[in-house]
């Protein structure tokens, strides 16, 4: 079974980026550096975002969950960006509309059935607007990853095959 990497190197806290594409490129590069994704991940993710956008119509803190096909994932991981200013993403269930994302969770997952516990925790985190509101005022990447690990254990017993 698989372990989902959640690492301080995969946290971008209020990064200085000009726009959405620059942000997504920076996040994909972090995943690549950590060995989580293969060559072509970023291009596949951008193409997917065009076809099936990932902005979520949440209340409070805006969240987007960009991802790509499993074939580009080498080792499952989640990259997190907490933004100073919202970045527009088209809505997953209605691409004609945009949401302003304050939090971007870039998912490098390759086996949803094996990573179901992580996915459920992820959905819980998406539904916890107050959590992300607190993260927006975090002073370090360590603070973000520490809080996130409590919410989203990087390894669960089930995923370790216990």
């Amino acid at each position, binding site marked *: 079974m698989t372990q989902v990497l959640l690492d301080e190197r995969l946290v971008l806290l209020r990064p200085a980026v000009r726009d959405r594409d620059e942000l997504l490129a920076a996040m994909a590069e972090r995943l690549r550096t950590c060995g989580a994704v293969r060559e072509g991940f970023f291009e596949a993710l951008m193409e997917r975002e065009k076809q*099936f956008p990932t902005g979520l*119509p949440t209340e409070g803190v805006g969240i987007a969950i960009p*991802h*790509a096909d*499993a074939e580009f994932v080498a080792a499952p991981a989640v990259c997190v960006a907490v933004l100073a200013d919202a970045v527009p993403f088209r809505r997953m269930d209605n691409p004609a509309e945009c949401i302003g994302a304050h939090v971007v969770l870039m998912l490098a997952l390759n086996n949803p059935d094996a990573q179901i516990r992580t*996915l459920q925790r992820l959905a819980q985190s*998406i539904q916890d607007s107050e959590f992300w509101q607190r993260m927006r005022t975090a002073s370090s990447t360590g603070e973000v990853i520490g809080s996130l690990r409590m919410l989203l254990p990087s390894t669960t017993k089930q995923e370790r095959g216990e």
Partner: protein
Amino acid sequence: MPVKKILVVCGTAGITSTIAEQEIQAAARAAGIQVQTMRCTPGAVATRAHDVDFIVTTTALGSHYGVPIINGMAFITGIGKEQVIEEILNRLRDND
């Protein structure tokens, strides 16, 4: 009573449809209803819709598949989730 089938649809990687599928299975189990769920991408809906009772989707989907389509975004955002679960359970209980 035959077990009803739900097609759970999302963009590509099966991430959001897996979350929705788990929630549907858990809600049906809690209500004592048997259900068969399967996942697919929008491109495969046309060939699979005829075999299911209805569709739950997290992504935008046309409405020309001849079966009801329920927006499953609530399973990801949590907003209006109880209502969507109720709608799904009602459709599962409906024997007409």
